[in-house]
């Protein structure tokens, strides 16, 4: 679908994209608002896009400590990849967890926590979707391992 106009209306799609290219909030554009009032089914998608783009702008720069952390990242990434592979084997062996999709994004840290009085453990992995000096966005996943 992504090669076609977002809302099946090329003129609307073009206007929306032009607003975003110019750094203008599309909802400040009268024509866009009028179109949305005529096509309220498109509102959730436009609202979602607007919120996510604003979220990206607001994500901001990483703290100064991130610079030092980045130097450790290559070593941690190697260790983490090995550990996650090991956990994956354990999970498959235990047959106790649903299959998980292949992780996307660079692995930057991980940890193992004992839970429920030692009856289970959890592996938490942090993956970086963006990790530059000006922008840092990460996603966290937790896998539970039953003994």
């Amino acid at each position, binding site marked *: *679908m992504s090669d076609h106009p977002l809302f099946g209306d090329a003129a609307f*799609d073009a206007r929306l994209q032009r607003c975003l290219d110019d*750094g203008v*909030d599309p909802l400040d554009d009268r024509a866009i608002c009028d179109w949305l009032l005529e096509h309220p089914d498109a509102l959730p998608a436009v609202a979602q896009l607007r919120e996510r783009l604003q979220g990206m702008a607001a994500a*901001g720069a990483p703290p100064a400590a991130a610079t030092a952390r980045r130097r450790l990242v290559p070593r941690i990434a190697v260790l983490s990849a090995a550990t996650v592979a090991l956990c994956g084997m354990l999970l498959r062996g235990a047959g106790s967890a649903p299959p998980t999709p292949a992780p996307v994004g660079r692995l930057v840290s991980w940890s193992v926590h004992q839970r429920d009085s030692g009856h289970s453990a959890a592996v938490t992995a942090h*993956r970086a*979707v963006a990790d530059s000096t000006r922008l840092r966005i990460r996603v966290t996943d937790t896998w539970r391992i039953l003994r």
Partner: protein
Amino acid sequence: MAAPRETDATFAQMVQQHRAAALQLLRRLAPADAEDLVQEALAKAWRYRASFVPGASSDGGRAWLMRAAFRAFLDHRRRVGAPAAVDPSELAQRAAPGRCPAADRDELARALLPLRPLERALLLGFHGERCSLDELARRHGLPRNTVKSHLHRARRRLAAPEDPEARDE
């Protein structure tokens, strides 16, 4: 034509069914005021319930209520005054812990994961780092118009519901 009491009952049922969707829309548009705005939208919708025709649409009135919610948002913006433009650089400069809560960041990160690496890089470069199209073209060694079309496609993907097939290639 349905009797008024019957129409009111149908209207109330429609509101009950689609209130959550209207609230979710307003939470995305105006997170701080969403609860107030949905009340305002519902009050207005009730006043104008005569214009709601049960069975006129296949969605059971969802679009009708979403339109009412959007009108409430637009009225609210007119009242409080909205900035003429979103300035991403200003937003980025003001960014601080709390402005983009962890849950929102996680949602954003998950939304970005299925995008192609180039699309993700362009979106983050343009909207996150506030690079210009020319800067991104130089950074990625691509013509400006190619950058633009990738960026537009990335936005379409970001607006679309989750697509499990749109994984990294």
